[in-house]
């Protein structure tokens, strides 16, 4: 039996909690399209976690994942996944690729980490001949990344920060309003970011009747459509985000339902995190003790 290992080619840290991994997987780099995701497992005891494919390089044969360390698995990933290392399991590309429509004017919105997965879509729209307005939002200027890279595929670029430390002082929805006010006709808005941001984007565009696509991030297990853990309500129907999505019409998504289901394992997530932090502390203490002993 072949147990593949998936080598990590390079790693870039954006901030204390966010980092980027380039992983060698030529077949996937060839197959991946904007909007798709992978499922990653760190080791045999690990869980299967979905991560959006932020970028892919067909020549180098790599795919790019951008990760925010928020819980046990992503923290472990931050600690363990270094260039030269490898990942135990990675499967994809999963989900239906984003539809790059014939929109003439499109706003691509990325909030926080969502900037990474919206980037290949902005690029694809640009390549398809659309007028692309990029709107990216961060809490603060020191969390910004990919600014130049993103700008290069946009006709207009609006940076929003919650604290006003860079660009527009405000949320991405303020950026969207600004762009709508300037252009009048916008054919489509594509938004990726935290669920609360995607809902806000959908509510901003609803009165303007602008088609708004969002990329949903429910809890997943297999990612192949066999468990229904990722089911979401869209237009009052059950959809499985892993095979029917992850992109859906933001005006038809039941976001309240998504929010409550995302909290399903909050207690267990906390427990796993505490246990992991504990074992890390013990490990550090043991390392320190060993170092001291070595010094004697």
């Amino acid at each position, binding site marked *: *039996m*072949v*147990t*593949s290992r998936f080598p990590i080619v390079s790693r870039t840290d954006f901030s204390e909690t966010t980092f980027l991994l380039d992983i060698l997987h030529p*077949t*996937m780099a060839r*197959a991946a399209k904007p909007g*798709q995701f992978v499922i990653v*497992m760190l080791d045999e*005891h*690990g*869980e*299967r976690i979905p991560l959006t494919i932020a970028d892919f390089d067909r020549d180098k044969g790599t795919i790019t994942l951008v990760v925010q360390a928020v819980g*046990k*698995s992503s923290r472990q990933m931050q600690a363990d996944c270094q260039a030269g290392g490898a990942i*135990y*399991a*990675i*499967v*994809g*590309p*999963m989900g*239906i690729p984003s539809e790059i429509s014939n929109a003439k004017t499109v706003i691509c919105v990325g909030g926080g980490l969502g900037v990474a997965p919206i980037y290949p879509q902005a690029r694809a729209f640009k390549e398809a001949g659309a007028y692309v307005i990029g709107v990216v939002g961060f809490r603060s200027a020191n969390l910004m990344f990919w600014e130049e890279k993103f700008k290069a595929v946009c006709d207009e670029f609006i940076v929003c920060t919650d604290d006003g430390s860079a660009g527009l002082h405000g949320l991405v929805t303020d950026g969207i309003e600004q762009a709508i006010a300037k252009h009048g006709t916008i054919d489509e808005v594509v938004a990726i970011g935290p669920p609360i941001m995607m809902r806000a984007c959908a509510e901003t565009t609803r009165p303007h009747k602008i088609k708004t696509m969002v990329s949903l991030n429910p809890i997943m*297990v*297999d*990612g*192949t*459509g*066999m*468990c*229904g*853990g990722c*089911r979401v*309500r869209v237009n009052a*129907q*059950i959809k*499985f985000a892993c*095979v*029917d999505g992850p992109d859906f019409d933001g005006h038809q998504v*039941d976001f309240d*339902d998504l929010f*409550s*289901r995302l*909290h*399903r*394992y909050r207690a*267990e*997530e906390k*427990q*796993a995190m505490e*246990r992991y932090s504990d074992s890390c502390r013990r490990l550090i203490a043991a390392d320190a003790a060993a170092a001291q002993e070595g010094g004697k």
Partner: protein
Amino acid sequence: MVRKTIRTIPQERALMPVQDPDIRATNFDEVALGFDIEAAKLESERCLMCPEPACVEGCPVKIDIPGFIEKILTKDYRGAYDHMTNATMLPAVCGRVCPQEDQCEGVCAVGAGTGLEPVAIGRLERFLGDMAIKEGWKKSTHIEPAPFKVAIVGSGPAGMACAADLAKAGCKVTIYEALHKPGGVLRYGIPEFRLPNDVVDAEIANLDALGVEIICNTLVGRLFTIEDMLGDMGYDAVFIGVGAGTPYFMDIPGENLNGVLSANELLTRCNLMHAGEFPAFDTPLGLGRKVAVIGSGNTAMDAMRVSKRLGAEEVHCIYRRSEVECPARAEELHHAQEEGIDFHWLTNPVEILGDANNNVRGIRCIRMELGEPDKSGRRRPVAIEGSEFDFEADTVVYAIGTSPNPILGQTSTIGLNKWGYIDTDESLATSLAGVYAGGDIVTGAATVIQAMGAGRKAASSIKHYLRIRDSDVVYTPEEHGFAHSLFGIDTDEQNFVRIRQI
């Protein structure tokens, strides 16, 4: 030898020990402990050695049942195993999970109208399968390589059986599996107490020994398509055995509350991801204290018994028909009842009730009665108006069946039928030349042995398609005068000798 009759054989089945219900409901160890040599011999004595055995016809892969039983009687266990495995790839699996009462044992002459129990064929098969694993028996075959590459999509029972047959025909076989471990439903679905993982591992090691390559973490359709496999990737034939797998929900109010999940999700989290061992394993389960499982097939039984073992105080089964129509194996139902699961027959959920935090707090059910038989011959359940009642539960598990997985339909031109299953002809050929399909993705949810049977049938068709001599086929003798042959060998055949027993 004096011919055995119903009166001369042992009247009672040999005893197979099982774990005590009170103890086993708290562990994941296997429930049925299997025959020892004495019991196997005693049970073999009960076989009448029918000259025209109905049991063989009742077996989907036509194992020569009296043939292997005869060898057990002469204490030739190795011979019995070799004889049996001419027909089946997974005896340790199928001996455990086949619904024998509807197959070989259902038609056994000993059990036919005599008041006696039929010969315990499944238990004998399992006995030999387990003995082979324990003793490390392998069927040593010299395989003549054939110049063909065949890809198998899915590593469940259909894919495994097809791969083994084609490897024996000399093909270079590669299995692609989407999950990180092979085995399909044997791994993620059927729990350890019915089918221990080391039995699955042993069967996969047998494939390995035949030179079959298994590549996990590969989602066919998305990473590459069926068309790519026949094109750039250079496969001569493809077998699709991806299972059905996509769970149904009922679309009643409250279904998206937290605490509602499919049996597939529960079983995957528990069996594949070891959620029962959280936090030593990272995947959580979040099972409550009062679990209600909707449906009463084998999947429902597994979900209920797993819940019980994970510490649920109460486990309830809700089924809209009566016990008579219960589709689970008789043995599974019996085991579940012994383990203290409450059955609510003729009951159907109409709404799942939630609390302020969007967690499940109960189910509203309605009582049913059986009406006229429908097309399938089963009496249709009809709701009794005004009979709604509420029921306390904090976890609701759906086990009401599956629909075909949409990925291959989304990503290839392969023909599907109106229900979304892959359309095949009698030989299991699909609308794409060289592509065959079998198992749940063709027939809808069925049994492990039926999937295996389909895998073997597809392997036979693929051999025919590739013009490899099929050892299962009786070839017609050459026409006199060698008009269509070369030295008596059919010129259509590209390979002549495939397997030689050594």
